[in-house]
């Protein structure tokens, strides 16, 4: 096939996929949005079963955490994460996956320093900085009477 470099460039441009950034962004949006919509559906189901808004929110979190960890056990969540990117990381299901996944992976290194310790490789920093930020916030509103 004879073609000029310009023609060749044009051809590769057409056949190469859309910029990975746009695709990543849309996939994260779609998968993350679906996980949140699933959470909303679960929450409304609990509310129509008579739970208060506050309780249904917590129980929804627990339900999503359970589903995510179960899917991590079956190696399904990592597969969704492969194309969901931040859409599977940012929801609470991603936090749950970050607890379960190293626990499973490092089980072979023992039940104490393997499984249990590695649970907090990612969850630990989240809890440390989240809790400390909330304490700083609490001190500020306590001292200034803003609560």
């Amino acid at each position, binding site marked *: 096939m004879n073609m000029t470099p310009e023609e060749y460039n044009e051809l590769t441009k057409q056949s190469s996929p859309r910029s990975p950034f746009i695709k990543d*962004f849309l996939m994260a949006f779609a998968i993350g949005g679906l996980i*949140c919509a699933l959470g909303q559906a679960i929450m409304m189901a609990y509310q129509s079963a008579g739970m208060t808004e506050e309780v249904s929110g917590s129980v929804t979190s627990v339900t999503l955490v359970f589903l995510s960890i179960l899917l991590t056990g079956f190696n399904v969540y990592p597969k969704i994460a492969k194309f969901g990117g*931040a*859409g599977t990381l940012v929801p*609470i299901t991603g936090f749950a996956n*970050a607890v379960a996944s190293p626990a499973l992976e490092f089980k072979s290194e023992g039940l104490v320093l393997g499984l249990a310790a590695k649970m907090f490789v990612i*969850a630990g920093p989240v809890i440390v900085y989240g809790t400390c930020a909330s304490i700083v916030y609490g001190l500020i509103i306590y001292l200034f009477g803003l609560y």
Partner: protein
Amino acid sequence: MTILIALLKAFLVGGLICAIGQIFIDYTKLTPARILTGYVVAGVILGGGGLYPKIVEFAGAGATVPLLGFGNTLAKGVREAIQEEGLLGVLTGGLGATAAGIAAAVFFSLIIALIFKPKSKS
């Protein structure tokens, strides 16, 4: 119809919050652990500042399911605990309000890790 609108709001707002996280992954060198940590701390700040509760009111699970909502719950827990217990609430409020999610993650992870075999990464 109201159910559909609630689901759509959750999808759109939750999707947007996740897509912003994707921008951090693609355009910065932030690791997933740092993004999760950043989202929770940002949630404490946005929740404490009063903006995030309004997003929760609008989007429901679209705002509570992402980790920003986890941070928002930490801030809300501290605020409510101070109202009930005074200064002690500064310490008890955050983890108290998020205890269900954290305890569930730890407990279910232990069970699953004991039952299942790790998959080889291919």
